């Protein structure tokens, strides 16, 4: 009786030991289950904001699951976009196909348009945004139209921007973009050849044309003075005048430099103003993609 009891006790303990060991062996494998990988990826995306790592966990989830879900593909694309890999993001989003039951399609198309915008493919972005704005309602419609307006503004299609905006007027504040439109319309468009021609006619006038008054006046004074000195030298000693040649050379160099400087000044002025405008539009556009 006693032996039987001890034997059963022994059996119980052995079995509990094996069960425990077995549980341990399989516990760490649970981290590799698709559900756990997905929940880890979601945490990386939403809480830790570690987008590159989240993208690789979503990819791992897809691989283990063996199927390609649009929701996961969408998240991977957003991770890529937030990491700055806009082209890859656009490629992934364009793979999400339209069908009646796909709730991810409209969102994917908006973010496709957004990725295209951020990768400087403005015309494609504008077309995509306009297309989806016509097939959706509410929040997605508003932000798609806004993106389309920004696409039109950055490509300097002012009247197109106004046209899209008029259709948007029933959705929120229609004037949010008016400051951008005004800035775009008043962008300086100084023609470099005009600046060069003006400086060739009257030294320094090209700089005045590009609003560099002080530089223009200095250039005029130096070119005029050195030319006068060169002429004075040649008048007194003819072609053998050292003074004439010296200041003549100096005046010629200044004169040519003044033409080149005026052309560059016009280019620089346009570029700086345009850069500021583009940066402002891109900053506004970036904020549009903050929400899923």
């Amino acid at each position, binding site marked *: 009786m006693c032996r039987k009891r001890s034997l059963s006790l022994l059996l119980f303990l052995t079995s509990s030991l094996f069960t425990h060991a077995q549980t341990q062996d399989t516990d760490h494998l649970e981290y590799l289950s698709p559900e756990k990988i997905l929940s880890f990826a979601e945490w990386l995306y939403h809480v830790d904001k570690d987008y590159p790592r989240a993208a690789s966990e979503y990819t791992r989830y897809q691989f283990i699951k063996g199927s390609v879900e649009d929701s996961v593909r969408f998240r991977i694309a957003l991770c890529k976009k937030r990491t700055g890999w806009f082209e890859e993001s656009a490629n992934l989003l364009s793979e999400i196909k339209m069908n009646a039951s796909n709730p991810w399609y409209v969102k994917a198309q908006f973010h496709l348009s957004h990725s295209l915008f951020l990768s400087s493919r403005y015309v494609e972005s504008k077309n995509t945004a306009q297309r989806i704005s016509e097939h959706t309602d509410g929040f997605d419609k508003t932000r798609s139209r806004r993106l389309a307006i920004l696409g039109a503004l950055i490509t300097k299609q002012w009247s197109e921007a106004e046209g899209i905006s008029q259709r948007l007027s029933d959705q929120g504040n229609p004037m949010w973009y008016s400051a951008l439109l005004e800035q775009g319309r008043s962008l300086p468009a100084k023609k470099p050849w005009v600046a060069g021609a003006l400086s060739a006619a009257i030294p320094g006038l090209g700089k005045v044309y590009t609003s560099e008054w002080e530089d223009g006046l200095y250039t005029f004074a130096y070119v005029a003075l050195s030319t006068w*000195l060169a002429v004075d030298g040649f008048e007194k000693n003819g072609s053998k005048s050292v003074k004439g040649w010296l200041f003549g050379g100096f005046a010629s160099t200044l004169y040519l430099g003044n033409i080149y400087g005026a052309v560059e000044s016009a280019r620089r002025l346009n570029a700086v103003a345009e850069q500021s405008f583009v940066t402002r539009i891109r900053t506004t556009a970036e904020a549009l993609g903050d929400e899923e």
Partner: protein
Amino acid sequence: MIRDLLQWVIVLCFCVSISNVAASPSANSVLLTYAERLEGTQQYDAAISEFKRFMFFHPEDPEVFRAYYGIGRCYRHLKEWKKSIEAYQTAMLMSPNEDIHGDISLDLIDALLEGGRFDEGLLEIERVIIASGSPIAVRKASYYKFVALVLRFQWNEAHEAYRSYLALLDDSSDRRNSPAVDSVLRMASHSPMLSEDRAVWFSTFLPGLGQLYSGDMKNAINAFGLNAALGYFTFQTVAVGGYVEGALLFSSVFLRYYQGNRYHAERLAQEENRNRNLAFARKVLRESVLTLPEQE
């Protein structure tokens, strides 16, 4: 009676074996060990993922500080100082005891100094020196303080920090190279540095003199020759009554070279000072490494 006793011995043996199994690495620490192994094989990016996985699945685990600590080390290897420092700081907040806290502090100091955040690094060093109960941590922090001050070329303060560090060494054999370090530090603190203002003034009175003062003979001759020629030419022009020509030459050509000469004199003095200080810093650090105890 004997049989009963035997039976209880067997039961006791099983209980002990089960408790051993329970105490052996759990699934949690398997994940952590795996992450540390990845870190050990320099797969830092993969290691960070595993450390984060542990943090996500076991946020309440007492070992979670190890994950933050590991992330800090990995980011340090990847030279992402900001992330490394943040992870170390979180690990310190969670560390279960003073020894571990001290170890993390030292790594944090290392990351702060490597990341160029000297002021914060020095602050952390002072905190360890004052608050740590571990003599090894205090000694290491003192050495870091000395290194940080050397890298900032604060020679007198560095000398002071080095003396404090030496006082903390247990073994006198570790101090065998200290006279060499002392001597270099003394040389560095007494080494005359060039005055940038003086260099500018020299070049103001005689173009090229500031460059000569900074030891750059080639630039000195160049600056002197160019300014002398242009000055002479301008003066000659004025002397023969060409006031307008002289004014034009003076304002458009001479002044430009003259001011350039003054600017370069200042820059050369700055560069020379920096080079001298760097040479001393290299020498001091090379000698001081020999005073580190072997295990450090």
